C-alpha cells in the first residue's frame, strides 16, 4: 500500500484538482433536478412561461458549465492514474533489473509479465476510474440523500429501506464474480500456455503425429473456459438484477408513499418528480458500487502482488556494495565451496581449487555434475552458499557485483540473442564500443565467414522480423559478445557445443592468442576442447573427483583418462 501512496503522492496536485472539480461536477449535477422541480412548479402554480423559460435557460447554462468541469475532473483523475501507472511500471522494471538469478529461477517469465502487464492495468483501474467513482459515489450519495431528506424525510427513509439488504447481497455476489472471473482468467492463461507450448514445438507435435491429442487437450481447456465464463455470466446477470431491483424497489416505494402524500397535499407534484429524479441519481452510484467493489478488490490484490516483487531484494551481498571493484588479475580460488539452488538440493559439495591468473582451466564431467553451477557462481549471479569464492584473495561477498562483472565474461550454455542487430548483440556489454573492436571480436569468434549470408552483414537484425541464426552462429555471436568485454576472466559454458569441429578449432586458436595472460574456464564434453588447458577439473555429482594437468590426469588413469580413452578407442578402431 505504501508504494502506491508514494506513487500517488507525486501527482497529489492532479488528484486534488480532480477532486475539487468532481465536487463541483456533482454539485452542478444535483442543481439540475432542483431547477427542473422549480420549472415544473412554476408551470403548475404560476402558469408563467417566462419563469419556466428562465429555469430552462438555467438548466442549459448549468449543463454547459458542467460539461467543462466534468471534462477537467476526468482529465485530472484519469490522467493522473495514467501517470502513476507509467511511473510504477518504470519503477517495477528498474527493480526487476536489480533482482538476482534466484528470483528468475523461481518465477516464470509469463508470471513476471503478468505482474507488469495485467496487474498494472488493475492498478490503473483502481487509481483512475476507481478513485474517480469512489469520490463520485460518496458525493452523490451524501448530497442525493441530503436533498431527498430536505424534500421529505419520511419518504427518504422509506426509499432507502431496501438498500442495506440489497447491498449485502450485492457484495456477496460481487465476491463470487471476482472468484469466477479469476477462474476464467486462469483458464484463459492455460489456453494461452497450451497454444504457446504447442506452437513453439509444432514440428515435434507433427513428428510424433500428436495433432489430434493436442486438439483434444486444447478443446478440453477451451471448453473449460466456456463453462467458467458461463458461470461468470450467471453471477453478472444476478448482479444486474440485484442492482436494477434496488432502484426499482425504491421507485415503487416512493410512488406508493409519495403518491399518497401528493394526494393528501403534503407534497407538491414537482416535489415528487424531483424526489424521483434524486432517486434516479442514486441508482447510478449504486450500480457503480458493485463494480467498484470488484475494482478495489482486484486492484488491491494486484498491489499486493506487485509489492511482493518490489519488496524482494538481491541475495547477492555484492549488489549492496557501493564503489568500484579493484582491478583483478584473474586469480580465482574456491574454498570448500558448496551450493544449492533456491528450494533445491545441494549441487556442489565442498569444491576446492586455486587458479593462478592467466591459467586456462578445463571442466569436464557427466550431465548434472555441477559444472554449469560452478560457472554461474563465477559469473556472480548466485550467492555463494557455504565456503568461499575468492577473486585475487578478496571474498566474493566483499566485491561489488557490477564492478566484478565488468571483469568477468560468461558465455552461457544456452544462447540468448536480443531482437536487435548482430552488431548490437555483440556490443551488449559495451554499447559504445568502436566498430573496429566489434569487428575484431566477430573475427575471433569466426563470424566473418557468415557475413555474406546475412543481408546487412553485422547490421542484420536478429529475430522475429530479421534473420534466424543457426545454433552455431548464435553461440559464436555470444562468444564475440564476451570477447568484446575484454574480460580478465572468461568462462565458456559448453559454448562451442553447436559449432562444428572445424570452426571450433579456429575459434580456440584465436581465443588462445586473445586470452594470453587472462584466466579462462572452458566447460566441454569434448576432450579435444579442454586438452590444451593448463589444468583440468573433473566433476561428478557436485564433487571434484580429479584435478591436474591433462598429462597428469591421463597418467592417473582416473575418470578423465577413461573419458579420453573412450574417444581414443574410437580412433584406434580406424587402425584395425
Amino acid at each position: 500500500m505504501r508504494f502506491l501512496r508514494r506513487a500517488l503522492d507525486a501527482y497529489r496536485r492532479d488528484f486534488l484538482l480532480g477532486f475539487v472539480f468532481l465536487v463541483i461536477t456533482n454539485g452542478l449535477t444535483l442543481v439540475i433536478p432542483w431547477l427542473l422541480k422549480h420549472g415544473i412548479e412554476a408551470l403548475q402554480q404560476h402558469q408563467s412561461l417566462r419563469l419556466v423559460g428562465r429555469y430552462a435557460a438555467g438548466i442549459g447554462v448549468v449543463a454547459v458549465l458542467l460539461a467543462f468541469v466534468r471534462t477537467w475532473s476526468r482529465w485530472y483523475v484519469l490522467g493522473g492514474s495514467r501517470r502513476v501507472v507509467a511511473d510504477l511500471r518504470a519503477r517495477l522494471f528498474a527493480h526487476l533489473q536489480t533482482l538476482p538469478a534466484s528470483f528468475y529461477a523461481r518465477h516464470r517469465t509469463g508470471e513476471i509479465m503478468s505482474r507488469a502487464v495485467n496487474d498494472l492495468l488493475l492498478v490503473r483501474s483502481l487509481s483512475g476510474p476507481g478513485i474517480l467513482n469512489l469520490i463520485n459515489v460518496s458525493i452523490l450519495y451524501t448530497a442525493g440523500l441530503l436533498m431527498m431528506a430536505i424534500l421529505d424525510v419520511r419518504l427518504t427513509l422509506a426509499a432507502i429501506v431496501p438498500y442495506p439488504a440489497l447491498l449485502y447481497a450485492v457484495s456477496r455476489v460481487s465476491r463470487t464474480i471476482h472468484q469466477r472471473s479469476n477462474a476464467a482468467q486462469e483458464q484463459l492463461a492455460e489456453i494461452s500456455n497450451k497454444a504457446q507450448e504447442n506452437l513453439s514445438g509444432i514440428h515435434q507435435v507433427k513428428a510424433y503425429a500428436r495433432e489430434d491429442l493436442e486438439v483434444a487437450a486444447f478443446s478440453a481447456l477451451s471448453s473449460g473456459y466456456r463453462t467458467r465464463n458461463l458461470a461468470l455470466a450467471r453471477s453478472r446477470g444476478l448482479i444486474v438484477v440485484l442492482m436494477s431491483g434496488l432502484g426499482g424497489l425504491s421507485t415503487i416505494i416512493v410512488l406508493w408513499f409519495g403518491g399518497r402524500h401528493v394526494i393528501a397535499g403534503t407534497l407538491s407534484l414537482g416535489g415528487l418528480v424531483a424526489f424521483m429524479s434524486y432517486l434516479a441519481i442514486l441508482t447510478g452510484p449504486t450500480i457503480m458500487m458493485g463494480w467498484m467493489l470488484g475494482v478495489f478488490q482486484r486492484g488491491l490484490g494486484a498491489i499486493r502482488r506487485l509489492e511482493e516483487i518490489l519488496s524482494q531484494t538481491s541475495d547477492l551481498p555484492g549488489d549492496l556494495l557501493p564503489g568500484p571493484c579493484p582491478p583483478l588479475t584473474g586469480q580465482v580460488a574456491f574454498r570448500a565451496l558448496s551450493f544449492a539452488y533456491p528450494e533445491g538440493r545441494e549441487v556442489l559439495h565442498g569444491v576446492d581449487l586455486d587458479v593462478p591468473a592467466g591459467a586456462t582451466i578445463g571442466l569436464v564431467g557427466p550431465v548434472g555434475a555441477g559444472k554449469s553451477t560452478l560457472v554461474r557462481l563465477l559469473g556472480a549471479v548466485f550467492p555463494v552458499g557455504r565456503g568461499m569464492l575468492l577473486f585475487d584473495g578478496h571474498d566474493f561477498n566483499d566485491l561489488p557485483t557490477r564492478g566484478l562483472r565488468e571483469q568477468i565474461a560468461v558465455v552461457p550454455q544456452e544462447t540468448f540473442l536480443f531482437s536487435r542487430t548482430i552488431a548490437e548483440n555483440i556490443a551488449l556489454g559495451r554499447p559504445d564500443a568502436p566498430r573496429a573492436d566489434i569487428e575484431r571480436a566477430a573475427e575471433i569468434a569466426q563470424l566473418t565467414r557468415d557475413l555474406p549470408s546475412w543481408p546487412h552483414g553485422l547490421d542484420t537484425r536478429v529475430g522475429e522480423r530479421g534473420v534466424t541464426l543457426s545454433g552455431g552462429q548464435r553461440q559464436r555471436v555470444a562468444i564475440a559478445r564476451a570477447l568484446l568485454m575484454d574480460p580478465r576472466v572468461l568462462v565458456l559454458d559448453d559454448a562451442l557445443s553447436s559449432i562444428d569441429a572445424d570452426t571450433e578449432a579456429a575459434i580456440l586458436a584465436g581465443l588462445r592468442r586473445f586470452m594470453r595472460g587472462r584466466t579462462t574456464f572452458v566447460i566441454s564434453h569434448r576432450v579435444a576442447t579442454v586438452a590444451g588447458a593448463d589444468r583440468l577439473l573433473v566433476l561428478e555429482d557436485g564433487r571434484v573427483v580429479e584435478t591436474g594437468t591433462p598429462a597428469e590426469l591421463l597418467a592417473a588413469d582416473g575418470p578423465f583418462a577413461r573419458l579420453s580413452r573412450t574417444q581414443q578407442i574410437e580412433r584406434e578402431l580406424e587402425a584395425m
Partner: protein
Amino acid sequence: MRGGARGGHGAPHAVGAGVPLPDDEVPARVYDARLARRLLAFVRPEAGLIALSIAFMFAVMGASLVQPWLIKRLIDEHIVPGKVEGVATFALLYLAAFTIELLARYCQIYTMERTGQNVIQALRVQVFARMQRLDMSFFDRNPVGRLMTRVTTDVESLADLFASGTVTLLGDACKLVAIVGILFWLDARLALVTCTIVPILFALSILFRGRIRQAYRDVRRRVARINAFLQEAVSGMMLTQLFRREEEDRRDFTAINDDHRDAELRSVVYESSFSAVVELVGTVATAAILWSGGARVLSAALTFGTLVAFLEYTARFFQPIRDLSGFYAVLQSAMASLERLFDLLDTEPSIVDGPRPAVASMAAGRVEFDHVGFSYLPDEPVLTDVSFTVEPGQNVAIVGATGAGKTTVVKLLIRLYDPTSGCIRLDGVDLRDRPVHEVRQQCGLVMQDHFLIAGTVAENIAFGDLGLSRERIEAAARLVHADRFVRALPHAYDEPLRERGGNLSVGQKQLLSLARAVAADPPILILDEATSSIDSETEALIQDALSQVLRGRTSLVIAHRLSTILAADRILVFHHGRIVEEGRHRELLAKRGVYARLYELQFGLAEGTALQSGRPERAEPLPVPSQP
C-alpha cells in the same frame, strides 16, 4: 540464464489475453458482408438460443417501456385529481412490469452469453485444429507470438461482439424506434423537439469515436511495444546483468513507457470530453422539453403527466444511442479479427494425406531417397540430387559440417516438408501417396531442440501415446540411462516439469527425448545430434542401449560427433547439400576425402594440436545456409 528463449520467440504477452502485434493492425472495413456471412455459419447452430434471447430482449423492452407510461397514468388519473383508490393497482402493475423486466433481462444476458461462448468455443478449437494441420513452411513464416493472438485476442474480441453486441444492438435499435413511436403518440410536436437531438448526438459520437479509436490504436501499438520489450528484457535479464547493460535498457524502456503514457493521456482527453459533451446534449434536451413542453401545458395542449413522461422517456433515449456508437468500435475490431481468423481457416496445407489408405501394420522400414532436391527459398537449394536407400534393419549415419543439409533430410523423411524435386519412398511407396500420420508414426525422432510439454516426466516420455504403461515408460528411461536422474527428482516419474523443462539440464532433456523415442518403439528411428551435449561416458552408455534398440530397426543417425555413428552399417557424408561420399567407416577413411578430413579434425584435436594454434590446413569454408 534460464530458458533458451530465442530472440523474439515466444509471445509478447504470454499472459492471458494476448496483445496484437503492430503488423496485425490491418485497417479493416467496419462491416464486411462476406465476413459476416461466414460468421453466420458459426452462429447458425445457435439459432434457437438466439431466438430465445431476442424474445427475452423484447420482454425486457416492453416491460421497461411500460413503466413511465404507468407513472403518467398514475399522475394524470390519480395524483392530480387526488383519487386515492386505484393507486395500489398501479403500484402493483409497476411492480409486475418491473419484475418481468428483471427476470427477462437475466435470461437475456445469460442466453446471449451462452450463444457467444458456444460460437467462440467452436471457432477457437477450429482455428487451433487448422493450425495443427498446416505445414512447417506456414510456421516458418508466422512467428509464434502472432499465431498465439489468433486463439486468444482475436477470438476474444468476437466474444465482445456477442456480449455487448448483436442482440444488444438489435435491442437498442428497437428501443429507439419504440421510444420515438411512443413520444410521437404522446405528443408529436414535443416529440419533434426531442428528435432534433438525435442527429446531433450521432454526429458527435462519430466525430469523437473516430478520434478515440485513433488514440486507442496508438495506445495498443505502444502497449505491444512495451510487452515485446518486457518479454525480451525479462527473458534475457541474466545476460543484461552479466553484461551490465541495465542503464541502457532502463533508458530504452523509459522512452517506450513515456511514449505509451503520452498516447494514453491523449486518449483520456477525448474520452473525458466525449462523455461530458454527450451529457451536455442530454441536459440541454431536457431544458428544451421543459420549455417548449411547458408552453404547451400552459396552452392546455399537453397534460402534466405527459410532460413528466416525456422527460422520463428522453432520459431513456440516450443509452441506446451511446451504445450504438460504441458498438461501432466493437464491430470494427471484431471484423479485423474475423478477417484474420478466416484467413487462417482458409490457409490450406500443401502437405496432405495421399490417396493410399492407411495400412494397419507397421512399415518394414525401407527408406529410399530418389534424386531428392529441396530448397526453403527459391534459388537457394539446401539439398541437391540426394539418392540413397536404407534397407530394413540397416543403421545409417549421416555426417557433414553444419548446414550440409543433414537436418533437412530428416524433415523431409517425416514429411514436415515435401521435396522440391525427386521422390522419397517408404517401403516402396511415395510418401506423398500415404496418409501423413502413418508416415510419422513409423518414425521415432530425437531432435536438436527438446520439446517438453507441461506435464510429468512420465507424460513427457509417453508423449504421443497416452495409453503407454508405466512399465514401458520406465523401461525406456532405464534403457537410455535417464532412470538415474529421474529417480533423483523429488517425485521421480511424477515430477511435474516446469515451462519447457526449465528444471532440467540440457543433457537431461536430451535423455528424456531419447527415452520418448524409445518408448514409442517405432520401426524407424531418427536421431538428430541427440548426443551432442552428453558427456562421452553417458554417451557410451547410450550407445550401448541404442545398439540394442537399433537392432533390426531402420535408423538414421545425424551427429557432428563421429563417435556416435561408428557402429553404423553405412555412413552418408553430406557436403553442400549433396552426398559426396558413402560407405563404411574404414572405406571412407581410406578415400581420404571429406569424411577423412572431418574425422581428422575431430580426433586430431584430441592431441591438443589445434589448441596450440598449429591448426591443420582447413578445407574451403563451409557456408551455413540460413535455414528458416
